[in-house]
């Protein structure tokens, strides 16, 4: 008979189920997939992210002088799938949990992240390259006797040659 009283008391103690948002910030899990963001220092310009991008949100366009490339992510085309983050070999592109994306129409094309990322010159042949991120180089060359500091400033072909030469030197000094 007093079942309803029980429910009543329980409901009063529980408080409202409604979130206070927009008066208070909404609860957002840390791993919520919101806006993507790029760390331009780590990006090597491989283009995997734009290749796997389901929303076609990423543009990578070299500038005319070929001294670097323009990297643009347009939030208004990003479907928050996270493929870019998953496939990026250097983990330069990551997702934040920022979901405050509503905007007026005037800002439609401002809802983007843009970076100009300059090329470096390969220490060996002078070809335009991006620095191989050290944390990646340490993993790739974990069992190789190369000098990581030097190898990250080389283009892929020069890297191959450098690795082979270093291996050769070692083999000569240590025939067994």
């Amino acid at each position: 008979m007093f079942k309803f009283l029980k429910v009543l008391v329980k409901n009063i103690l529980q408080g409202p189920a409604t979130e206070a948002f927009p008066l208070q910030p909404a609860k957002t899990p840390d791993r919520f997939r919101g806006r993507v963001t790029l760390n331009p220092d780590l990006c090597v310009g491989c283009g995997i992210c734009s290749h796997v991008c389901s929303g076609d949100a990423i543009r990578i366009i070299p500038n005319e002088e070929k001294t670097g490339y323009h990297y643009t992510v347009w939030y208004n085309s990003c479907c928050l799938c996270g493929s870019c983050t998953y496939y990026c070999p250097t983990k330069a592109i990551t997702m934040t949990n920022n979901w405050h994306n509503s905007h007026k129409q005037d800002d439609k094309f401002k809802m983007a992240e843009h970076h100009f990322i300059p090329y470096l010159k390969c220490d060996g042949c002078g070809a335009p390259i991006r620095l191989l991120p050290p944390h990646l180089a340490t993993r790739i060359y974990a069992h190789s006797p190369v000098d990581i500091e030097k190898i990250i400033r080389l283009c892929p072909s020069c890297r191959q040659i450098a690795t082979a030469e270093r291996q050769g030197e070692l083999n000569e000094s240590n025939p067994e």
Partner: protein
Amino acid sequence: MSFLNNIATKSPWLFRINAGSCNGCDVELATTAFIPRFDVERLGCKYCGSPRHADIVLITGPLTLKIKDQVLKVWNEIPEPKVTVAVGICPISGGVFKGGHSIEGPIDRYLPVDVNVPGCPPRPQAIMEGILLAKEIWLKRIEEAERKGVRHVQIS
């Protein structure tokens, strides 16, 4: 009466148009309204069943060839001053359907959009932020219309 008018102008009615969406965004719109955790009606908004009662129109989907004419027709039924909100990346840019053979969008090629809420789908709170933005625009438009002396705007 002006007291009543003041209250009335603060409560926009929402109307939903599905322009060929995958239903993801529609579910989020329904969530925004019907799940007590979000409860958009706290903001004075209410979903209505007829475009003629609507003030803020929420459009989802990339505007497919098949639905285009109907969407434009229904949109024209909504009385001015209306505010158009594009919900999801589909109506804003075409999203994952961009470049499809049956996609006529982005929707701003055909309709004047006022607020964009990107996401695939956007979370309910993001939609609520968008609705608040739209409400702001809507109140401004009503004020403007009142200043010009228009009380009842004709349905086009």
